């Protein structure tokens, strides 16, 4: 009785309680519409979150889920995947949860390459605690806890993920549903830890922080959509990016620059991925899409191989042999 799921099947009976207008609604909606397309049984899907606005997400998905404690979702998910490698696991976290209190777990998850998906909702603010600066807030940001401006240099989440040797690194945004569905689908396909930074607007405490990338009038100039094997072109085809050695340069295609000289996106190239992750300079557009991906053995596959090999070499362990140990003696 294989019946295809619909987005409605993925919606739990709990009332969604994010602020009206929050970017989280869009991400939830895209997730609920993508999951039925993945061909995974609902019972095999698990959402694991930490603490924060985004971390309420599992309550709204009609799958298995756990709303764990602050920052620890990557560790919970790792244990779950090791216990049952057949599950499709999605970690939902935010910039505070994933990069501040849980930063340690995130980088270790990425280096281990456990096969699961991480969605980091980045709104560059602490929302649930009502508006303090976060580890991705820009320097100088004035908030309740930084009345004279934040003195913290922010994290660049994609550069951090690349630095931790993540095998799938991507960026998307709440206001581009189609793109988000594509990235979610690609992330599910990737074997290993997929890290997706999602720009998400907090309309209460940090409204408009990503306006450059969502506003119809502005985004052409600021958004660079990456497509595998295609040249880096933005601003309605007017501008392109080429590499001068390792130095990216913006060229104007309407003023004689040739499209043939442009940087061709190759998501397997770690050096280029790093350069793309550093596009924060105002002159450069922000890159969206799959910045980097590679095939590498997953943690759980290597572990299971070790278990199989041990059983092969030593035989399936017998409990009495184990308890007896190597040297026992009998008292008559």
């Amino acid at each position, binding site marked *: 009785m294989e019946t295809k799921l619909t987005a409605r099947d993925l919606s739990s009976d709990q009332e969604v309680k994010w602020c009206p207008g929050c970017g989280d609604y869009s991400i939830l909606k895209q997730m609920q519409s993508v999951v039925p397309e993945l061909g995974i049984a609902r*019972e095999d899907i698990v959402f694991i979150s930490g603490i924060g606005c985004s971390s309420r997400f*599992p309550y709204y998905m009609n799958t*298995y889920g756990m709303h*764990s404690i602050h920052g620890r979702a990557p560790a919970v998910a*790792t244990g779950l995947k090791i216990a049952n490698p057949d599950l499709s696991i999605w970690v939902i976290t935010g910039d505070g949860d994933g990069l501040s209190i849980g930063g340690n777990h995130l980088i270790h998850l990425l280096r281990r390459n456990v096969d699961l998906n991480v969605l980091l909702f980045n709104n560059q603010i602490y929302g649930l605690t009502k508006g303090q600066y976060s580890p991705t807030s820009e320097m100088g940001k004035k908030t309740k806890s930084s009345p004279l401006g934040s003195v913290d240099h922010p994290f660049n989440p994609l550069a951090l993920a690349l630095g931790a040797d993540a095998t799938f690194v991507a960026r998307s945004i709440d206001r581009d549903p189609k793109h988000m569905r594509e990235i979610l689908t690609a992330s599910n396909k990737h074997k290993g830890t997929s890290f997706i930074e999602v720009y998400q607007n907090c309309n209460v405490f940090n409204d408009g922080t990503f306006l450059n990338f969502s506003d119809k009038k502005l985004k052409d100039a600021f958004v660079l959509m990456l497509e595998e094997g295609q040249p880096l072109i933005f601003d309605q085809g007017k501008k392109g990016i080429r590499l001068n050695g390792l130095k990216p340069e913006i060229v104007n295609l309407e003023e004689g620059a040739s499209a043939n000289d442009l940087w061709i996106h190759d998501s397997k190239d770690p050096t280029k991925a790093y350069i793309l992750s550093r596009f924060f300079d105002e002159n450069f557009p922000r890159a969206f899409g799959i910045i980097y991906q590679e095939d590498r053995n997953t943690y759980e596959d290597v572990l299971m191989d070790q278990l199989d090999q*041990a059983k092969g070499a030593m035989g399936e362990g017998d409990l009495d042999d184990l*308890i*007896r140990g190597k*040297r026992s003696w009998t*008292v008559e």
Partner: protein
Amino acid sequence: MKETKTLSKVTIHFAGDSGDGIQLAGAQFASTTALAGNDLSTFPDFPAEIRAPIGTTAGVSGFQINFGSEEIHTPGGRPDVLVAMNAAAYKKNFANLKPAGVVIVDPAGFDKKNLRLAGYDDEENPLLNKPSDYQFYEIEVTRLNRDAMKDVDIAPRDRDRSRNMFVLGFIYFLYNRNLEVTLHFLEEKFKHKPAVLEANSKALKAGYNYGDTIEAITRYRIEKAKLPPGEYRNVTGNQALALGLIAAAKKSGLELFYGSYPITPASDILHELAARKNYGVKTFQAEDEIAAITAAIGASFGGALGVTGTSGPGMALKTEALGLAMMLELPLVVINVQRGGPSTGLPTKTEQSDLMQAVYGRNGETPIPVIAASSPSDCFRAAYEATRIALEHMTPVILLSDGYIANSSEPWLFPKAASLAEIKPPIRTKSGDFLPYERDAKEVREWALPGTPGLEHRLGGLEKEDKTGNVSYDPENHELMVKIRARKVALVAKDYPKTELLQGVEGAKLLILGWGNTKGAIQVAVSQALAQGLSVAQLHLHHLNPLPEDLGSLLESFERVLIPELNNGQLVRIIRDKYLVKADVLDKIKGQPFLAEEILDRIKKLLKDGDGN
């Protein structure tokens, strides 16, 4: 012919620099002695530094073993024999030796440099001024061992490294022991290093033969102990814990997941389990203590037996996650191999100072069952029991061991796998009509595993609505849930066997109430007190939370209660609080286990003078 004396019990203290291989020699003597049929108890005691300053008293590593043809409950008080590899080892331990005891020393360890490092004054050398009523064996271990190394292909700097085996060989001769166990051990250990194997085997035999050669030496015979019949092995606490976890996982039909971050003195549990992959054991060396417990929670959510192990400082870090596990009502075993605290404290020394932390140390109303192990072999039972409670009651359980139990060893009349009680986790397989927080008569909810169709549900640390498990801020519901969770843990006590005195009778003037590693010392003290006609009894607790339901009425029958604890008074507060009985503490906070005589002294003071202080 050499003279042979028969003894019923001997305590030997091996001491040397922490690089001298004292722990290895001691552990080998214990294995050989166990196999020879003696009862025994050991106490390894070493510095926290991997390599403390050579030759100083701070760097002295010790290993004490008490063995005999009678039942042995402690590693012994003052040793009969002191083996001191250098002046520092001698200086640190001589005063503790029994009057007229035996001292075995290597004069090379008492040269000018060693004497100075040990803190002796100029020109002072204890070997030149030996107390005449002690029996000294001055054996030129270093020189004799170098002779034995003559034809062995090892670097000159390594030739002294087998001195521990030379001394061990000599002690084997002295106590009529067989070399076979240690020779076999060396063959295994140095399989791939033939020269090192040869060096150590030769040293061992040379030490034994040296004993055979010298004149005027008394050998000792210790007959086999009259232990209950059955099959035995020697086991340390950490080994027994690992075995207990694997056994419990097998008997419950689950995979064992052990998440841990290396920490003294718990790391050996991780090592033991990591080597058991053919038993399907999955070990996860986490990035930190919090990841270790939360990964174990994730594994439990997924249907494995999630276990994490640590010591006090790690336990502090796991506190928030313990609260989560309690809210999720998932099975989880959390092992705390206690060490001296607070903070980093005394990593290699033993203490029982995390009891309050285990019973109370969390935010909110967070009741969690607490189990304690009382000896190395008892760690198996404790691990099995902790797992049973975790699985059958769907709750995190804290298991308290400690550094003393963890590293000590004793003979163990081990059980057959078939005799172990089945463990039945309440795994839900039937789909439909599933409410995650619906409970049975014991307030236990069902365990629905991801991957099971029709049982999809969400768990979390926010307060749950009764039965549905949905998030709820309703005040009535919160109070109800707090009470339900308290009752659920209280009901764990319904499973306990009847609480029985180990020695003495109800109504005695004084009850010695113990928990954890104090059992052996209390046993010896109480039996001596009873032999002296004192009105005393012994009771030992294995379940610290909830306490046994019949404990209160039992306690009331005694005039007073004395609780020996390696802390500043923790169980005593819990007992006074719960039962309002007159209970006193005998505390000891020195990083060392109790000596039986310390407890006996207090018993006598209390009963003869009526004054415990």
